[in-house]
């Protein structure tokens, strides 16, 4: 296990560690602020158009959202455990925990991909999207979005009578999906970055880069991962549990 390298502008390894950690917390602060803009947009639209949120939420699968929540919680648990292993110099445990974290994150993205592709095929998109079924003028909705699917079964356009829907509600449902894709999309990008960070940590752990005095990167990577989990903890009830 390697020792921490002390940069010349720090007095001690401890000071170096505390400085890195404070820097990470300030970065997380900017991340929370970044997401807060979308949360405020969500709040304002939901306060004004609760009916549209209620209508649109029927298209979100609570079970898939809950499964993704559990995957992220498990990955947060293993990320925290990875930090413990790094602190104690347990290389095998560190690598195993990082690996489970990556697998959970990939599982999360898999479920997300399934949800996104379903919405794309049904045209459950913001009103301005080419494939959206929530366009003001029904004539502009693409014909393939209106008809049932090859494997049988109605399209959402047919089963939910979108053609004769109240235009004001239709507009707001389109806006709901705009907010949904911005929030989950930005979060998904963070999950992808997190996967990259965890793989980088895994590679470094395999080369004996970490030890009881030298685990800053694992600690900060885990902090980032917990923040991604923290954001999802709020996204899940706000998007999937609207009753």
């Amino acid at each position: 296990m390697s020792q921490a390298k002390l940069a010349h502008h720090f007095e001690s390894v401890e000071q170096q560690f505390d400085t890195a950690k404070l820097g990470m917390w300030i970065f997380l602060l900017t991340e929370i602020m970044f997401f807060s803009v979308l949360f405020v947009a969500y709040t304002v639209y939901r306060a004004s158009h609760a009916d549209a949120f209620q209508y649109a939420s029927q298209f979100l699968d609570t079970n898939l959202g809950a499964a993704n929540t559990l995957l992220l919680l498990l990955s947060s648990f293993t990320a925290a455990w990875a930090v413990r292993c790094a602190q104690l110099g347990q290389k095998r445990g560190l690598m195993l925990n990082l690996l489970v974290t990556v697998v959970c994150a990939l599982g999360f993205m898999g479920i997300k991909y399934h949800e996104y592709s379903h919405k794309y095929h049904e045209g459950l998109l913001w009103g301005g999207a080419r494939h959206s079924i929530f366009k003001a003028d029904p004539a502009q909705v693409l014909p393939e979005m209106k008809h049932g699917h090859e494997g049988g079964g109605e399209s959402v356009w047919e089963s939910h009578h979108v053609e004769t829907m109240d235009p004001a509600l239709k507009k707001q449902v389109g806006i709901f999906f705009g907010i949904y894709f911005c929030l989950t999309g930005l979060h998904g990008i963070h999950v992808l970055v997190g996967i990259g960070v965890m793989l980088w940590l895994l590679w470094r752990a395999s080369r004996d880069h970490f030890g009881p005095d030298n685990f800053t990167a694992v600690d900060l990577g885990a902090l980032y991962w917990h923040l991604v989990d923290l954001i999802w903890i709020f996204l899940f009830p706000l998007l999937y549990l609207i009753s």
Partner: protein
Amino acid sequence: MAASPASDHAAEHGLGHVLPVKTLAATFAALVALTLLTVFTGKMDLHGFDLAVALIIATIKATLVALIFMHLRWDRPFNGLVFLITILFVGMFLALTVTDRSQYERDIHRFDRAHPAEAPTGE
């Protein structure tokens, strides 16, 4: 488990605070239980308190993650202060915007009634 204050833990354990697996596992179990609870309460009709209950459960979960998984409970208090100030500013951002919105609520509805069909067309 020695829940030592932030000032002297470094001397005991080297850098940072080492959490026992038992604490981590118990936190994870609590988070899973709260997730199941929020799915359960989400399917019930709580007569207008649905959102409040969901947000209270989410806040408890977030607090557990921040205090234990993110080590804030044992960390330098200054890092926790940074986090709390962030929450404060997000709260101000939210509160001021919502206040502004309710001030103009009637105008929003008047506008919606006057322009019902102005949905984006994608052109």
